[in-house]
């Protein structure tokens, strides 16, 4: 009756689908689930903080469960984003640092490619300038201006190849690659 199944498919979910709409549907389901569980997690965290220590320990179980479920949903969400890129005809070659999309092709510099790959691997999540410096390039010593510069260059590449995604910037949250749909 109880289902503990990180990264397992939900009923009716088929990652092999050829239909772009299916991919969008499941992306939206997992995004909703993550949002839902995030809301519950925040609520439980707030309530647990008001309990006495022994009860806090017992209630920590609830937190672990929700966190583990969220990790599983995030894995599925990432799989679906990967699938939607496939269905969309996006092809990324790390060896030659080449990106192809629907007949178009662009050769990227090392940093351009690292940034694009990082954002593709973590779609619809926001990263601050310092997170990008540390995680996408593993070089926190670089100046934040470098991020802005490479973001500009990536936006041009997305535009030139007609890749249906926007590299958006939200104040206080950072940058994110957001799929727009065909």
């Amino acid at each position: 009756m109880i289902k503990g199944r990180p990264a397992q498919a939900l009923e009716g979910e088929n990652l092999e689908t050829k239909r772009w709409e299916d991919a969008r549907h499941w992306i939206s389901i997992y995004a909703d689930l993550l949002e839902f569980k995030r809301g519950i997690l925040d609520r439980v965290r707030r309530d647990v903080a008001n309990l006495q220590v022994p009860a806090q320990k017992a209630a920590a179980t609830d937190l672990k469960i929700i966190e583990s479920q969220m990790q599983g949903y995030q894995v599925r969400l990432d799989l679906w984003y990967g699938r939607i890129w496939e269905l969309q005809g996006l092809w990324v070659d790390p060896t030659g640092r080449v990106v192809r999309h629907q007949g178009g092709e662009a050769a990227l510099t090392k940093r351009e490619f690292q940034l694009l790959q990082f954002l593709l691997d973590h779609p619809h999540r926001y990263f601050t300038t310092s997170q990008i410096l540390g995680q996408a390039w593993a070089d926190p010593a670089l100046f934040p201006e470098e991020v802005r510069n490479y973001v500009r260059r990536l936006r041009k590449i997305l535009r030139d190849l007609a890749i249906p995604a926007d590299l958006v910037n939200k104040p206080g949250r950072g940058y994110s690659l957001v799929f727009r749909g065909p």
Partner: protein
Amino acid sequence: MDKVKPPSGRPDVDAAQRGGDWTQGMDGEGIPGDSTLEHALYWRQIYTEILAMEEKVLDRIRQLMNTQSDEVRREVELTNVPVVVAQAERFRQRLGYWDARVVQLDGHHRKDR
């Protein structure tokens, strides 16, 4: 305590097992039948608080579920609701033990139930 099972590595399954096992107390809880009044009052308060929290969480889950798609509702019904219900039931049962112990030792009934 022969009902206690080793952790399965799946927190929700472990929680469900614990939820179904009313003999399982918290760390340092001890046995109600051996406890002093002070100890019994303390643990009655602990279980009152955590049960209230679980009930609030369950209410919140059910409230939020109303606005979700069928898929999300089904998933939450399968993965969250049973665990919280099982936990709450266990805490309710444990509270009952401590309540009974307080009454036994003190003769006072809880006024807030």
